[in-house]
């Protein structure tokens, strides 16, 4: 995806240790000019540390950071020209909004008339004109966020780094601000790297997502591709709500037919036989993954669908407004299924269960990598 021309930031074998604890390990990444890239992962996975290394606020233990092909690994943050929006905005509380916005320009010795012009321009584009002379500490949260954005944008940074900027918002407002953020990014056309632990945020905002786990890259791809083709068990279980159903199964062949078996539960996957055998390389254990939203009660079309050999029994119904979460028992496996809110399922009900064959995920039990 990244050709040399428009590549903005490159991370090479980046590694960071804090007192012997590894925060980031062997991270390679190319950030393309103009893209919205999300770092997604559970807390402590190293995403903020990576962001801070790009900004220069942390020094990598090993590896390099490049900006437009220039190695900046040890360049002090003052000389990098990156914008950073902190989780708590880190506004200069003792200054007015105007002074907050002007600070970076004054530090850079921009001419006063120029400062005034640029501050007013950025304030207008982020709807801050009315609060320019308010003290930063008196603002409400969403205004603070816009000030934080404006303050980083006014110095015209190469890249905008955002560290969970929506964390302080209550849920409803959070979705609204998410939309705002997306609009600004399209309007401003800036390269943004956005750290979040919220997969919805990453899915809606990101052109690409870097999923991180324990300091390493778990997968780097478009949101759609990550959802449809998770590269490993971690991504499969992390992305999607409720998470993907993962069932330990055994692969067996009977005559011409191939099955995934778990005690008396069987799944006929003969069409995938060749692919699976190539990937298994002699192994017989593997992990079957199916997303709750891809499961469906019968009857099924002849072509392209697979059906479990045992019927599913509804164990629990959790109704939400527009959909229902069902806990199903199938054999000794407990799996989740998502159906429409109006679907009339009751506890104890039995029905055949299947899913489209192309929605199947298979993972290697030890390497945890996707096999298909």
């Amino acid at each position: 995806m990244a050709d040399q021309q428009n590549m903005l930031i490159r991370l090479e074998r980046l590694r960071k240790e804090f007192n012997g604890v590894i925060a980031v390990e062997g991270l390679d990444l190319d950030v393309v000019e103009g893209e919205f890239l999300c770092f997604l992962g559970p807390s402590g996975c190293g995403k903020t540390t990576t962001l801070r290394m790009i900004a220069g606020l942390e020094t990598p233990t090993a590896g390099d950071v490049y900006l437009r092909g220039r190695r900046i690994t040890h360049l002090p943050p003052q000389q990098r020209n990156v914008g950073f929006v902190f989780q708590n905005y880190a506004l200069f509380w003792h200054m007015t909004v105007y002074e907050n916005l002007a600070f970076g320009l004054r530090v850079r010795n921009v001419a006063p008339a120029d400062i005034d012009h640029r501050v007013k321009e950025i304030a207008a584009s982020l709807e801050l004109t009315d609060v320019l002379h308010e003290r930063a500490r008196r603002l409400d949260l969403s205004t603070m966020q816009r000030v934080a954005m404006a303050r980083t944008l006014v110095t015209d940074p190469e890249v905008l780094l955002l560290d969970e900027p929506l964390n302080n918002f209550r849920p409803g407002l959070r979705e609204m601000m998410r939309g705002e953020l997306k609009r600004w990014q399209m309007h401003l056309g800036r390269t943004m790297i956005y750290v979040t632990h919220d997969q919805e945020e990453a899915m809606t905002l990101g052109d690409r997502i870097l999923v991180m786990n324990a300091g390493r890259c778990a997968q780097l791809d478009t949101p759609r591709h990550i959802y449809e083709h998770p590269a490993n068990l971690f991504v499969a279980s992390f992305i999607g709500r409720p998470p993907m159903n993962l069932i330990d199964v055994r692969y067996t062949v009977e005559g011409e037919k191939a099955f995934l078996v778990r005690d008396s539960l069987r799944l006929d996957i003969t069409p995938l036989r060749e692919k699976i055998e190539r990937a298994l390389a002699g192994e017989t254990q593997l992990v079957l993954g199916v997303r709750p939203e891809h499961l469906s009660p019968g009857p099924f079309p002849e072509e392209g669908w697979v059906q479990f050999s045992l019927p599913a029994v509804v164990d629990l119904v959790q109704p939400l407004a527009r959909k229902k979460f069902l806990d199903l028992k199938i054999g000794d496996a407990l799996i989740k299924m998502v159906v429409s809110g109006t679907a009339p399922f009751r506890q104890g009900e039995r029905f055949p269960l299947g899913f489209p064959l192309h929605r199947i995920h298979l993972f290697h039990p030890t390497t945890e990598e996707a096999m298909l």
Partner: protein
Amino acid sequence: MRKMNGSQILASSIRWLIGLLICIVVMLPITWVLSISLKPPEEWVAYPPTLVPLKPTFSNYIILFQPGNPVGGIAEMVSSAEPVTRAFINSLIVVPIATAASVLIGFLASYATVRFQAGGATLPLFVLTTRMFPPVAFAVPLLVYFRMLNLIDTQLALILMYTGFTIAFSLWMMRGFIEGVPRHVEEAAILDGASPWRVLLTITLPLVRGGLAATGLFVFILNWTEFLLAQIFTSREALTIPVQVSHYVGAVGRFYGPMAALGIVASIPVVVAGYIIQRYLVTGFTFGLVRE
């Protein structure tokens, strides 16, 4: 005003009562000193004592500045004392300079230890060791040094000692305030291109203004009331107010009136200083506005 029910009225009354009690406890000694300072000699230790002087007089105050003035008939008793003007000037020079130096050094040192771990984790504790012995333990060796440096009975000697002995307070008090400045705020300024000095002066310093004021007032009072070192290291030229107070004790007794009058006069600068900086004292740290 909103209406209060019975229990709220009770709670409110109890709060007021406790407040009143605290006020009395705090104000009574001051009122007493004020009262004595306005009394003629025969009332100083009269029994039963009266809070309001029976024959109020300003002679105690006049005596402070004109020891030979015959007003009130106490001049011959205290004529040994110098006018307080010199002690006042000394205190007004020594204490503000020593306080400013101590707070400045303490602020910079605590910033260095908090943000850059300068000197390692033990440096702040090491600084604290200067307070682990009573100052008198240092007094004798210092007396020898200052004798060699010809600094006995000079303002400079007091400034040096008062600065040195209060740095531990300044450093430790400022640490708490500096730790209260979110690191991210400084990092934001750094990313805006600001140099470390610029961050310190334009971001951190204004944010800990309240802490500086509180520390300054604390150290000021500490130095303003210091007696022991001033008594040992000064005799005539550089004596300070606390030493001057002790001069109103003579062979025939204690001259409570002039002592009390000097006590009242001496508290004026402290009250003024406190009044000037009180608006910084209540800046209320609003860093908690956004959760960390």
